[in-house]
């Protein structure tokens, strides 16, 4: 997987500054181009005199602000992209091969739900990728469906580019017919199959990885507790094919203190989501 650009929404607030800083750091670590998205509204601009000047002026102001805040050079190291709220393009501000950093949880959920094209990182208040812990692993949770593989499709290249280890996390329900205290013995066949495929994908890329398998009472709680214990740099998840709102991804986005990467998952089935 190629990650050639990092996009971020421009927001002239302290928290927006954190997202911009995170995106700039991520772009630098990935060797990717930074795209700063400016939300514009063509309907509002139409009511203003000199509308072309208004948009150009806004872009110039944002360009100056980004250069000052990040120390990056315009055009060569970052560019300004306008996203019109009045057009459908707003929902797909980043192109395939890119990654979108977004601070706003509801926006991230909307983007992750509607767009299956780019990975989206909810960076919250973090200023840099490894600012808290230099070797914090990338946590990739998996279940018995392919969403874990979709997460790994983004998480493994990210870990490789960032030089971070990976923790594959799985929590399983206790199988009452199994006497073992080892959580791995309670895993179902489908989850074991996913685990084998994950490990086989991590090995050729040379990504250091290990497993955490447990029988937590609650899936999201267990996953977030593990991420906090491991001092994870990020959690990479993908939505399952059968769920949309209220899924583990949505719960994680709402509750995680750690940046969450929502990887593009499988296409939605006909008839919408449950």
């Amino acid at each position: 997987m190629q990650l050639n650009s990092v996009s971020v929404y421009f927001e002239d607030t302290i928290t927006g500054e954190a997202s911009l800083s995170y995106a700039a750091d991520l772009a630098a670590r990935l060797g990717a181009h930074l795209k700063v998205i400016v939300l514009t509204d063509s309907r509002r601009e139409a009511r203003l005199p000199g509308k072309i000047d208004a948009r150009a002026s806004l872009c110039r102001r944002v360009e100056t602000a980004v250069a000052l805040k990040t120390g990056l050079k315009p055009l060569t190291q970052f560019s300004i992209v306008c996203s019109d709220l009045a057009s459908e393009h707003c929902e797909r501000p980043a192109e395939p091969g890119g990654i979108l950093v977004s601070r706003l949880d509801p926006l991230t959920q909307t983007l992750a739900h509607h767009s299956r094209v780019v990975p989206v990182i909810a960076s919250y208040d973090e200023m840099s990728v490894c600012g808290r812990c230099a070797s914090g692993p990338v946590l990739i949770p998996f279940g018995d469906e392919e969403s874990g593989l979709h997460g790994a499709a983004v998480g493994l290249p990210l870990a490789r580019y960032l030089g971070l280890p990976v923790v594959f996390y799985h929590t399983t329900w206790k199988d009452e017919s199994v006497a073992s205290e080892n959580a791995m013995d309670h895993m179902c066949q489908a989850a074991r199959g996913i685990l084998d495929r994950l490990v086989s994908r991590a090995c050729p890329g040379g990504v250091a990885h290990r497993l955490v398998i447990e029988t937590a009472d609650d899936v999201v709680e267990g996953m977030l507790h593990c991420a906090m214990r491991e001092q994870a740099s990020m959690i990479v998840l993908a939505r399952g094919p059968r769920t949309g709102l209220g899924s583990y991804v949505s719960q994680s986005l709402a509750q995680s203190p750690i940046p969450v990467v929502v990887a593009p998952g499988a296409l939605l089935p006909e008839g919408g989501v449950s």
Partner: protein
Amino acid sequence: MTGAKPCSLAFFRNPFFVMGLVLFMYAVKAAVKITLGSSINSPMIEGDGFHNLADILEALAVMAVIYVSKLPSSDEYPFGRKNIEFFASLAIGIGLLALSLQFASRSIGGMLFYFPTLDQAVRSVLPLPAHEPLVMDPGTFPVVLGISLVSVVLSVVVSRYQIAVGRSSGHASLVADGEETASDSRIEFVTLGGILAEYAFDAPYLEYPLGLLVAFLIARTGWELFSRAWKVLLQHSLGAERETEIRKLCLMVPGVVDLASLKTFQVGQTAVVMVTVVTRRGSGPTAFMKYGLEHIVQSYLLGDEFKECELSVKFQKPSPERYRVAYAVSMGESHQVTVAASLRGASHLVICDV
């Protein structure tokens, strides 16, 4: 059969069993030393026997302290009664400091005995105890030597046992009593050295410089016990070094913007950390931040010194970060105000406090 082994091992680690053994040891030592000392007319050995009698009372007091400290916490005593152990440590620390002073003055008195002029000059300024030379004949030598040797070995073994069990079970008073027993062993070792020096080289004075060194070691142990108990009882912080590390670790937890306050102290073997975290995150993430903070702080603090760690976390929002922003606006003919497309096209600047 397999289940019996850990149970019996646990019995040997029971603080009351250890103190029972200590009581037995002191009772035997006191009986033997008082009997022998009076029979050979040795005030030093007899005095040591009475010192062991005092140790029996101290051991009984330590057992009472351990019993009280093990009582569970309640509404009235939310942290339990573990601090009582440090009252015992404080008392034992003061006792050791007094003992070291007494032993040092006896050793100085012994050294000055060989320099009568200096002895007279010093005694005119300092009230040193009267020097009592060792009284022993060749017939009693093997008995005295044997008893002194066994006494030293017993004290060393029992003190190590007390300290090990005290540390593993988290009973500071047991550790302090073990340190006291270890000090006894050092004094007994010096006495043994004196006996051997007199017999082998006819040079009992060798005992006294060694005694001065031992007095210093006892004073150091006494001061350590005293100062640690003092700090715990007065709820001294866990120390600047530990607080700096805790602050650093807390800032490693995602979502933490800053620490508004950090207070630390110790109750018994429990480290108490009270922290107010500044965060912009809501109630959902803060529950997991609390988990992360507990995990990272406990991993750092739990070990030999602290058996438990209580972390109290409060979250607060950052104070408003106020700033000013200027908007370039243009006023139309009908006094309608709109944001200007550029500064050149602006008629007014509106400055707002945000």
